[in-house]
């Protein structure tokens, strides 16, 4: 659902720590932070260790592992979350392929006590902003 929206258009940028881009909820409604079950990121075919990714939600940065207990904080459906990807050097100028899969638990679709987890994969090539030539 809303698969093509996972990576926000034109959001890839070079930051001192490496790269950053925006992700959106691939669902029609807001969900609590605790429903983010995973995020897989590869840049130019290089898989990034998910344990190193940081997500900015509601003005605060979190490691993915810190989101699980936060069932009372809400990721509003119209808001983007900035994802920071640590790289050895800031992202180089030019086009880069982002391959992103977000895993969201859908908290009201539960069969035999097992909730549905949607995994939406979005691949986009974007030109990095703020990258030095």
């Amino acid at each position: 659902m809303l698969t093509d929206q996972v990576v926000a258009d034109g959001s890839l940028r070079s930051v001192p720590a490496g790269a950053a881009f925006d992700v959106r909820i691939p669902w029609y409604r807001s969900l609590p932070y605790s429903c983010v079950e995973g995020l897989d990121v590869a840049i130019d075919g290089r898989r990034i260790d998910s344990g190193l990714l940081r997500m900015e939600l509601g003005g605060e940065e979190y490691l993915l592992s810190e989101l699980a207990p936060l069932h009372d904080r809400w990721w509003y459906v119209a808001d983007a979350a900035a994802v920071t990807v640590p790289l050895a050097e800031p992202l180089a100028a030019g086009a880069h392929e982002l391959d992103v899969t977000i895993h969201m638990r859908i908290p009201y679709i539960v069969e035999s006590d097992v909730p549905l987890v949607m995994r939406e994969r979005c691949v986009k090539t974007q030109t990095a902003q703020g990258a030095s030539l």
Partner: protein
Amino acid sequence: MTVGLPQTAVTLYSFTPDFHAGRHDLDQLVARAAELGMGPGLEIVGFQSIRDFPNLTPEFERHFRGLLDRHGFEPACLDCNADRALRSDRMLSEDELYEYLAAQLRAAHRLGFPAARMQWTAGLPVMERLVPLAEQLDVRMGVEIHAPETVDSGWVLAQREWHAKHQSPHLGFTIDFGSVTNQISPTMFQAFREKGVAEELFSAFSERWHALDGQRFEAHEQMGNFIQLAHQYGAGDHAINMSVFAVGIHGHGRPRMWLEISDQIVHVHAKFFHVDEHGVEPSVPVAEQVQTLIDAGYGGYISSEWEGWHWDLHSDAFEQVQREQRIIRSVLEAAAA
């Protein structure tokens, strides 16, 4: 007491792609829907249209009521969610789920909604406990019969029995047109064809889907079967989405089944996938469904819900709702004449 004919309504859920992409905010959606004459009823999903739902600031409450008044809309239904799996470590307890839904009911009342769409995953014990609050707030709760559920599903039968004993008008059903479909939407196959999914998979899906007509089945088992089938034909990343769509929004019920619960229909979602330029929706028998509701003596809202946006990135949501409402209105006008 005579019951009038049903009235048209629209749920802003139909415009999810426009809202999600930021092309229209809540106020703009309401204005556009009013301009296109989609009322008199308006429905929203609480967790979509309202930031921090179900907490409402007095400012938002005033703003929302003023917005609907200004555009001539009547609040029809607030969609609530029974998020049993809110926590990552365990399911919510019945007490927690009660509180979670009670807060949403109170929000419905504050915003002037006469009805709340509920979800069966809350369970009958929790729904029963909510009845006194619903009575006090005078918000009628309609638990949604959504594909693949039908009026014969286990939880529906249990709630019907409860109704036979208690007769409360505050706990009934929301009927979803998607629980009664003729076939998987051709526009869904078209979308996955464009993504390169093999043609043979579509006939295999159709065949498997029709094999379930008139059968009782477990949704999660069928979901598993469809996913497996999709993988056999190399659907890859699309396997889960295609299966969720096939099983989870294309139901096998028949409209006449609704006559069995005619005194318990609180609200109606007129779900549909695509109405073409000739006014034809090949999957959802909209006219027959509306006629059945009239025959059932239903006098509430029929709320247009365009769901084709999951896969159809080309159609205009506003045009789609207008086309469906033309079908609905033609049946209502014929009945009034």
